[in-house]
């Protein structure tokens, strides 16, 4: 199978989410286990991933791509695509699907990845599957083979659609791949097992649930420069201004996050959390109740509809641990809780807990850290 992967890059490096997407794409492109041999004459060698990057070829992280198992690269160069334009990007991917007879297109489940693949889904008329954790080819799926998945009975054990309606799509021609998908719902609080019948398969990757793994290929990746014809209509929506907000430790990348919830008691209670975060070189994050009460701005919200964090330590104070909040801290390496309620759901997600009132514990903790720093 031929798998294309849209790779986001920044300052000459592949972004972490795209490294996870490349790892995911490589697994999709793996040949099936024995007894099913890949038909000869396939376009790309088995297990090969073709990366697609927008930008000048000489500024792309080509060496990093080879480390992640990329054999071929399309560098999409156009002076009309210097700034991000979601529809134009999707149109380029649609062209490259045709040019490479791709079976699947993968992108990181970032804002851009989801947006571009949603457009691609609309352009191709195919499903777009967001937040994938894994994708494995169903076994009986070769073109023209009896029992190909375009028929309802194609995959053993496959249920018919809801209400007993036939699950085959009209127009699902032979040659479509069938995939067994696991994807996130509720931002990862729930998993969905699903079956996908589409050509090409369009998937975005739940990058906080898929670890990036290297798999170096011999030699450098082959870079092909693709110069698309970009229509003015497709550029109607494009980035026309871009501004860096004020400095400070970013919540998304902070090494330590001090979290505050309802237990903080009110807006004035956050001074102590800010002080502790400052001492630890970290940032303050809050639960949804805090922002919907207007105690703190939404930019500090951690959760499904706020910021996803991935710190070394998340120190969660006065937070009960609702699903919506915990979905934002799946990436935290360690969780330590300060809470008055020993039965709060968050204790079930934490490594350590102090049972007590944060309004007493945090000032004492700050004093202890200061005393320790002063004596060393």
């Amino acid at each position, binding site marked *: 199978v031929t798998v294309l992967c849209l790779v986001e890059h920044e300052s000459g490096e592949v972004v972490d989410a795209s490294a996870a997407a490349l790892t995911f794409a490589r697994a999709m492109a793996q040949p099936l286990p024995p007894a099913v041999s890949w038909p000869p004459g396939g376009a790309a060698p088995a297990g090969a991933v073709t990366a697609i990057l927008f930008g000048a070829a000489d500024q792309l992280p080509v060496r990093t791509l080879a480390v992640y198992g990329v054999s071929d690269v399309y560098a999409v160069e156009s002076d009309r695509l210097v700034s991000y334009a979601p529809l134009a990007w999707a149109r380029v991917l649609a062209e490259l699907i045709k040019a490479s007879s791709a079976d699947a297109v993968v992108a990181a489940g970032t804002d851009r990845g*989801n947006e571009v693949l949603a457009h691609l889904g609309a352009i191709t008329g195919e499903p777009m599957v967001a937040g994938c954790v894994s994708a494995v080819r169903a076994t009986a799926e070769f073109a023209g083979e009896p029992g190909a998945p375009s028929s309802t009975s194609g995959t053993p054990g496959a249920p018919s659609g809801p209400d007993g*309606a036939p699950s085959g799509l009209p127009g699902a021609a032979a040659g479509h791949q069938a995939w067994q998908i696991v994807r996130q719902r509720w931002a990862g609080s*729930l998993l*969905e097992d699903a079956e996908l019948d589409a050509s090409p398969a369009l998937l975005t990757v739940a990058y906080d649930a898929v670890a990036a793994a290297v798999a170096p290929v011999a030699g450098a990746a082959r870079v092909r420069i693709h110069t698309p014809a970009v229509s003015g209509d497709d550029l109607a929506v494009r980035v*026309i201004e871009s501004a860096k907000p004020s400095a400070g430790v970013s919540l998304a990348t902070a090494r330590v996050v001090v979290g505050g919830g309802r237990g903080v008691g009110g807006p004035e209670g956050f001074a102590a959390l800010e002080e502790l975060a400052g001492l630890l070189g970290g940032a303050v994050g809050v639960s949804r109740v805090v922002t919907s009460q207007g105690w703190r701005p939404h930019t500090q919200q951690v959760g499904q*509809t706020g910021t996803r964090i991935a710190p070394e330590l998340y120190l969660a104070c006065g937070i*009960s641990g609702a699903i919506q909040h915990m979905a934002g801290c799946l990436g935290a390496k360690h969780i330590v809780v300060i809470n008055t309620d020993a039965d709060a759901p968050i204790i079930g997600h934490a490594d*350590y807990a102090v049972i007590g009132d944060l309004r007493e514990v945090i000032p*004492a903790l700050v004093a202890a850290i200061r005393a320790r720093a002063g004596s060393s």
Partner: protein
Amino acid sequence: MEILVCVKRVPMVGGKIVVTPDGQEVDTRLSGFTISPHEECAVEEAVQLVERRGGSVSVLTVGPPAAAEQLRGALALGAGRAILLQTDGSHWGPIATAEAIAEAVRARASNGHNPYDLILFGNEAADTGDYQVGVRVAHLLGLPCVTGIKNIEMGEDSARVRREYRGIQEGFEVTLPAVLTVKEGINLPRYPSFPGRVRAKKAVIEQSAPSWHGEGLRMRMLRVPQQERRRAEILGQGTGAVASLVRVLDELGVLP
């Protein structure tokens, strides 16, 4: 200006999510239903825009008859018109959902109403997280679309819209009519007023029943992921635990 906001009825989940024994849906026997925080903000944004500029807000959902509850919630906040595209228990995928919404938008225009200037969605539904219905509706109607919007600055025939990307604020200009999907944080939604609730209770909800079709992605089963973390080690009670807490933070290498 005429604004349409599309919302989705989803289970209200708190500290725990439970799946029904057949693995087909979230168990809602002990919880209520709501809409996504993103969508609450989309309703609020629409109401604020018509308060400033005149016009009216319509709210639409594709869902079971009980989704009238979510429509009335939006009516109580200031929407003037509610449309229920009624489903019959099938799982509606994003393609069929987008087609039904686009058809309802076209039907409005052909019935002689003023067409919508703006169609708002939440960035993604809280439950399925498909990230695409708004984009598909935009394609079906031939409208420009931007997702993930945190700020809307309305002009005469266009809007300047902004969002965040990797710590950078990026701006787009879209001509109207347009489709925007918004994120929580664009505003702070109000609470419904008493007169608003009374009005919502009395309002007539327009209904139709679009036809369902299957899609290439078929759900088989929902399941709760295995928890990796064990139950927390309790370091102690109150300030008596601070010494142990400092030791743990030291071991994690986060102390100054």
